[in-house]
């Protein structure tokens, strides 16, 4: 019996099916890896400083630029001899806190704007969404720096400023979801029964939009951590001596030739955290709503 397989002819059907299954598995594994990375990082930053013998602020001139793995400073020391690992853990507290807090605020703003715009539609809805479009016209780093330049930078203001530049995506996602849900039977039924607009919006419709909100918020944590790193690296975010992953890279460029680990290590922590949230967000998108997947 002749067997023909089409385009590409060399791959057997069995192999193709196997690799499809593999695709799902790998996808899932990436999300698990991301979750694992986040848990490890959070635990490390929360508990680590209590266990680790070095303090993040203790200056130890004898160990300036200690190389990683060469002394008790396992990840080396910076220009003032401060233990890098201790600093990375404390910086992680700051960066992760800013990330989570900015996510929470931007999710609340975005959900609120998106719900109002999606529910009322018409002039209010389109005006709100055009406003979202207009904010998105500003490159986020420019807007972020302009706002940050006007405020006294501290943990709280930086979080607010980041949230102010990161809520638009959530608003778009929620608006689209609410707009499509608004015409469904249960919303109309609630309306006929005399429920108030606020009740329909926040009790009937919003719970049905939780899945995309969760996905968008997870990706927003990644975004917020990155934005904090950018603005702190550029000198307008978290101010020394409080370390953050971004501001630890502040002066690292000067020492690139002599102490490259000062630049590499904080970056790796940022990448690990951001990748973690991106993987989890992507996995959640696959799991909660496969139609949203662009891949």
């Amino acid at each position: 019996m002749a067997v023909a397989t089409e385009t590409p002819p060399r791959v057997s059907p069995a192999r193709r099916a196997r690799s499809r299954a593999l695709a799902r598995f790998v996808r899932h594994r990436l999300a698990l890896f991301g979750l694992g990375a986040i848990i490890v990082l959070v635990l490390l930053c929360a508990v680590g400083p209590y266990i680790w013998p070095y303090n993040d602020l203790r200056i130890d001139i004898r160990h300036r630029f200690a190389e990683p793995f060469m002394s008790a400073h396992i990840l080396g020391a910076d220009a003032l001899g401060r233990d890098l690992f201790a600093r990375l853990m404390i910086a992680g507290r700051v960066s992760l806190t800013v990330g989570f807090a900015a996510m929470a605020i931007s999710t609340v703003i975005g959900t609120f704007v998106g719900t109002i715009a999606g529910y009322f539609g018409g002039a209010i809805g389109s005006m709100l969404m055009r406003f979202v479009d207009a904010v998105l016209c500003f490159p986020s780093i420019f807007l972020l720096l302009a706002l940050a330049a006007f405020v006294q930078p501290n943990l709280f203001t930086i979080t607010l400023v980041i949230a102010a530049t990161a809520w638009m995506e959530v608003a778009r996602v929620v608006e689209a979801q609410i707009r499509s849900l608004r015409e469904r039977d249960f919303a109309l039924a609630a309306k006929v029964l005399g429920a108030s607009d606020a009740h329909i919006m926040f009790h009937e419709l919003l719970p049905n939009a939780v899945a995309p909100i969760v996905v968008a918020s997870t990706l927003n944590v990644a975004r917020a951590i990155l934005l904090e790193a950018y603005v702190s690296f550029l000198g307008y975010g978290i101010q020394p001596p409080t370390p953050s992953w971004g501001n630890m890279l502040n002066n690292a460029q000067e020492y690139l030739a002599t102490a490259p680990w000062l630049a590499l290590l904080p970056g790796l922590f940022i990448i690990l955290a951001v990748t973690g949230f991106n993987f989890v967000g992507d996995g959640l998108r696959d799991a909660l709503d496969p139609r949203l997947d662009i891949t």
Partner: protein
Amino acid sequence: MTQPRQMDPGALLQVDDLSVRFRSDAGVVSALNGVSFAVRSGETVALVGESGSGKSVTSLAIMRLTPSPPGCQVGGHVWLRGTDGVPLDLLALPSEAMRKVRGDRIAMIFQEPMTSLNPVLTIGEQIAEAIAVHRGTARASAWDAAGDLLELVGIPEPRARLATYPHHLSGGMRQRVMIAIALSCDPALLIADEPTTALDVTVQAQILDLLRRLQKRTGMAVIFITHNLGVVAEIADRVMVMYAGRIVEQAAMRTLFQAPRMPYTVKLMHSVPRLQIGGERVVLEAIPGSVPDPTNLPPGCAFAPRCSHAAEGRCDAVSPALEEVGAGHFVRCVRWREIADGVGR
């Protein structure tokens, strides 16, 4: 394996024991199970059946265009008489040789004229491409030939149309363009997969008329796939009825309409509305039940679960063989004789 089996001397295309299986999440889908038939030069054979019966898969398998992503296995033989008279097994051809057959010896038109043309290429480019691919013709003369083809398929102002894009044309006009592409290399066989289904009734009639005229002119054979028995009556010389990936009845068009033997064919005819003036009222019957799950076909006759003549222990036991019940009339039913003699119920 590639040694040509005895190919019917009159046949242009001979399909032997063609089977197609897809691997899906639900299990292995048996889309086609041992389909065999032949098509002679110049004749029109209609493939009839409900959706999911395997008509389209048959045509795609002949062209080797079955969709690749769901791991798809095609088995059997498809013999095509080459220009030199020597039979070629299409399923065993290297893909490059098969590509040269497509659009040249065998051409195909599809159900959806609205989406079957590339939206960003002009009509002229799309017709000329087919000519250039197979004839290596220079651009200018391919363009000229494309204009002639548009004229042939009855498109007004053919030469001006060459530079327009598909979205400028109606569905009927686009289907004419598809036919022009199909005819560009004088194929010996045209496979028309529900070419009129998506069109208005009046446009349908025009397209059928066009196909008939062109066939007379070029002498090509046509495999016409449809679920519309009215269309079959208008165009076919012979009819093959398909059900659950098998041919269940095969006969000359008149024979089939006058004396259908397979209970499924009978039911299919009764489910078609007919316009009758002054005649007795015909009650429209829907066929009870639905097409069987292709991942889990019944062990016996696939139609048995829906058949009012089904006999326990016989119809559901073994899959019936295709039996010759008259000259060129074949039926896949163990009880055809009893039913014909009127002792069916």
